[in-house]
Each structure stands twice: as structure tokens, then as C-alpha cells.
């Protein structure tokens, strides 16, 4: 029964970081083909398809026609960058319910190459009722997360140096990823001496902007066991939405508290059991908040938790984002959830770069946050295990 009825059997990450000469639909198709071929299947085996607003046209229908998919189940849940981790949850539910056998999830974007800097890939803000009360003040993502970081420093004594350690750890990992946009190892001093973008966040506290994308394929275990790839099982999942509640604002925590509570309860494990964590890293403060909200440390202790290399594989207690993450590797469509899944699966398969591979990695978490921690956002948590 659910959640043991769905395994991740195929993954693929597009190597491009600036998608010149390729259309958005073809990017989605490329990552889809890459993931089904990784599984040893073909697109004709797919009968469930999951996508966010970054998919072109009307999403699932548009891409079903383009890729020639014969679908009996679709889901276009849109929770920003966390969408794809939610899709894994939904795909497992659909498979468990017999609604599909092979589920494909894609994410892709080309807004860097097309020079259309529209923020969250594919989202149309027309009619969003809060916009007239926010747009005029020009809250960009950095300003929104800067306000979250400012509040965290005020409430908990978090420092710029502590936040910088998140980027330092990501850069240690990215040096081993030939596709990463930023491969130079940086120091705490490099981060805090980089220009302020939105105080207290420096340029190096911010993720990269990139094109590219990725895909994930899930299937029921009877199909999965006959394939040649290592199997990764979804052991537990959870989702939640948090918002500004009519002005009853508390920026000290995120929806990750609730999504991870559900996921850990369903999996029957605790944060102490986790060997590797993929955590959404739109900004360094995002990681610190999520470490607290997922229970890797007490609320307010995130800054102290990340200091002194505690997130560096082979050095610290909790290796994170060993592909370099959004801070150094890529962030297609400003939607980092898909790449969080990909690196967690690589770790569980033992296919991460040898320099960052966690020994005997048996249990991992992939967690995403979509939207803004200073406004409305969705969180999704997936607990994945090697089987």
C-alpha cells in the first residue's frame, strides 16, 4: 500500500544553463526522454504526466500532444519551485490508487536565453488580489527574502557569517560538478564582502538564474523491479501552504514545518535518520529556515547549525545539495524543486560525484519551497530511501 507502492526509476538533468537554440517544449521533451531512457523505458510506457506552469501552452495537454503521450492521469499542481516534489507525492498516490503505472514529471525553462526575465517561469499574475498592495513597492525576490533574513537575525541572533557558510558549503560541492554555473570555492569572507543586493543578503547569498530543467519517472514496484537501475522508494511525503493570513504575519517559520511533519510521520523516521538533505536554496537564509523547520535543529539554531562547514559532504554532520544546488549549480525557471529530487536520487543510488558521495547513503530528504517565505508559499517534503 501507499507509500511503498511507488519507486523513482528514472532521472535526468539537462546539462544546459543557457538554452540557446532550443524551444521550451523541446527542453521538456529532452528531459522527459532522458529520464525514461535512464529507467530503461520509452515515452510510450508513460501513462501519467505531471507538470507545473513552466510547461508551455496548457501544460499537460500541450506536452502530451508534443511528446505523443497516451495518458490516463494528469496533474498540473502549481506551488512554484516546490511543485515537482509535490508531484512526486501525487504520482505515488495515483500509482497506489491504480490510476497510472508509469508517472513522468518534467520541469524546464529557457527564460535566460530568451531574455524574458519573468520571474517564476510560466506564472501569470493577472488577477492576483494582493498585487495592487505589493507591486508598487517593487518587492523582488531578494527584497522579500532580505526581510525574512533581517527578521531572523533580529529574533535569533543569526549572523551574516553564518548565512555565508551555506554558500561556502554549496561551492565546495559545485567544484566537482562540471555543469555547475559557479564552480569556484568561496570563503565566508568572499560572501560577506560581495555587494549587498537586499540587506542583509549579499550577492553570494543569492541563487543563480539559469535555464535547463530535469525530469523524474516513478513506477509501481512490480515494474520497477524488472528494470536495471537502482531503485529509490518514496517512503513519506507531505505538503503545506502558508500565507500572510490577513496580516497575522510570523516570518520565523515556513510551511516546511507542516509538510515535513507529515512526511516524517508517514515515513516513520526522524531527521536524525537522514543521511543526505536536498534543501531549497533560493537564498542562504532559505536553507537555515528549512533546517529548523524540518527539525534538524531547534528553531533559531539554524545559523549555528550551518557554521564551520556542517553542510559540507565529508566534513559536516548533514551533507546538503551536493550538486552545488541553486546557489552554484542551476535554478531552471527559478524552480529548484526538480533538481533537489535529482541529487537526492543520485545520492541514494550511489551515483553522486565520488568527492561528494555520502557513504552508504540509505535515507535522504528532498524539500522544496515555492513562492515567497515573506508572502504565500508552498512547501513539499519527500523522504526517499534506497531499496
Amino acid at each position: 500500500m501507499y507509500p511503498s507502492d511507488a519507486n523513482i526509476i528514472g532521472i535526468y538533468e539537462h546539462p544546459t544553463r543557457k538554452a540557446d537554440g532550443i524551444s521550451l517544449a523541446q527542453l521538456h521533451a529532452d528531459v522527459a526522454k532522458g529520464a525514461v531512457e535512464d529507467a530503461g523505458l520509452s515515452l510510450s510506457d508513460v501513462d501519467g504526466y505531471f507538470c507545473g506552469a513552466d510547461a508551455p501552452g496548457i501544460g499537460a495537454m500541450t506536452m502530451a500532444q508534443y511528446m505523443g503521450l497516451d495518458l490516463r492521469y494528469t496533474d498540473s499542481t502549481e506551488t512554484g519551485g516546490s511543485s515537482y516534489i509535490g508531484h512526486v507525492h501525487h504520482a505515488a498516490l495515483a500509482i497506489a490508487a491504480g490510476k497510472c503505472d508509469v508517472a513522468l514529471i518534467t520541469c524546464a525553462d529557457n527564460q535566460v536565453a530568451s531574455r524574458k526575465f519573468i520571474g517564476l517561469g510560466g506564472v501569470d499574475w493577472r488577477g492576483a488580489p494582493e498585487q495592487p498592495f505589493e507591486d508598487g513597492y517593487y518587492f523582488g525576490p531578494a527584497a522579500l527574502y532580505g526581510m525574512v533574513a533581517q527578521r531572523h537575525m533580529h529574533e535569533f541572533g543569526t549572523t551574516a557569517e553564518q548565512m555565508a557558510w551555506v554558500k561556502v558549503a554549496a561551492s565546495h560541492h559545485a567544484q566537482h560538478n562540471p555543469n555547475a554555473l559557479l564552480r569556484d570555492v568561496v570563503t565566508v569572507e568572499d560572501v560577506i564582502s560581495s555587494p549587498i543586493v537586499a540587506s542583509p543578503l549579499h550577492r553570494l547569498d543569492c541563487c543563480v538564474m539559469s535555464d535547463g530543467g530535469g525530469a523524474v519517472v516513478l513506477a509501481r514496484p512490480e515494474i520497477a523491479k524488472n528494470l536495471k537501475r537502482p531503485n529509490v522508494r518514496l517512503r513519506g511525503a507531505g505538503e503545506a501552504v502558508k500565507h500572510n493570513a490577513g496580516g497575522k504575519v510570523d516570518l520565523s517559520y515556513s510551511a516546511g514545518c507542516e509538510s515535513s511533519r507529515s512526511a516524517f510521520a508517514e515515513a516513520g523516521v526522524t531527521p536524525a535518520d537522514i543521511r543526505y538533505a536536498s534543501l531549497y536554496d533560493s537564498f542562504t537564509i532559505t536553507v537555515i529556515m528549512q533546517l529548523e523547520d524540518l527539525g534538524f535543529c531547534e528553531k533559531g539554531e539554524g545559523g549555528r547549525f550551518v557554521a564551520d562547514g556542517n553542510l559540507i559532504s565529508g566534513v559536516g554532520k548533514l551533507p546538503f545539495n551536493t550538486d552545488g544546488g541553486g546557489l552554484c549549480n542551476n535554478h531552471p525557471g527559478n524552480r529548484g524543486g526538480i533538481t533537489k529530487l535529482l541529487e537526492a536520487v543520485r545520492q541514494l543510488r550511489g551515483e553522486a560525484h565520488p568527492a561528494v558521495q555520502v557513504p552508504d547513503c540509505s535515507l535522504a530528504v528532498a524539500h522544496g519551497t515555492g513562492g515567497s517565505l515573506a508572502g504565500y508559499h508552498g512547501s513539499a517534503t519527500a523522504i526517499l530511501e534506497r531499496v
Partner: protein
Amino acid sequence: MSENVPLPKAPEIWPEVTPYWDAAAEGRLVVMRCLSCEKHYVHPRPFCPHCGSDRTEWCDAAGTGTIYTFTITDRAPVFKVPAMVQLAEGPIMMTAIVDCDPASVEIGQQVSVAFQPTEDGPPLPVFKPV
């Protein structure tokens, strides 16, 4: 207000919230209050987001508050200090701090409402240090 900076674009005015922008044009900040649970809320809408009641009313805000959080940025074309301010009535709203030395802005600082003209619409409520 600062000189030599572009005006913010005018807000799009949804039909349910015209009293908010009409009041802003008169230099008044209004908030909505629920007659059922008696809580104030932002941004305005015809029903209470706390309890769902349709029994709501517009009321004049005191126009004072404290800074809940802020950021200093050169990336915004108009406002250098986007912020969230907790109104005397309780709710925390998105806004900006003006007429200030950004380096002196602090969480918990007392502020009062002011109004920033926009391109071709009603002004935006902003706050300045008391």
C-alpha cells in the same frame, strides 16, 4: 519624498476595494475590521480571512505602527527600504519606509503613514519614522 526618482506605477483597482484607494487619495489609511470576530485585517476584501464572516466594515486606521522587518536595496526603482509594518490595529502590511536614513532604520521603530504619489492613480501608503 525623494526627488528625481520615478513615480511608482498606479495600483490596479479591483471593484471590491475602491474605498481603500478612495481613502488613500484623501490621505487616509483605512483597514477592514470583522464585526464577527472583531479582528482587523489586510489587504482588504469583502469577507474576513480570519473567520470567513461577511459582516465586515471599513474603518480609519490610526496611521501609526512599528517596523516588523525591512530590507535596504538599490534594486527597486523608487523605494530603497521595502518593509513590513505592524499597524496599531494589529495587522502587518507590506509597504516601504521613506524620508529616512536607511542605515538608521531598525525593527521595532515607530513609524507613521505618509502617501507616495503614483504615475496616474491613487497614492500608495508608505511610512516614515516618527
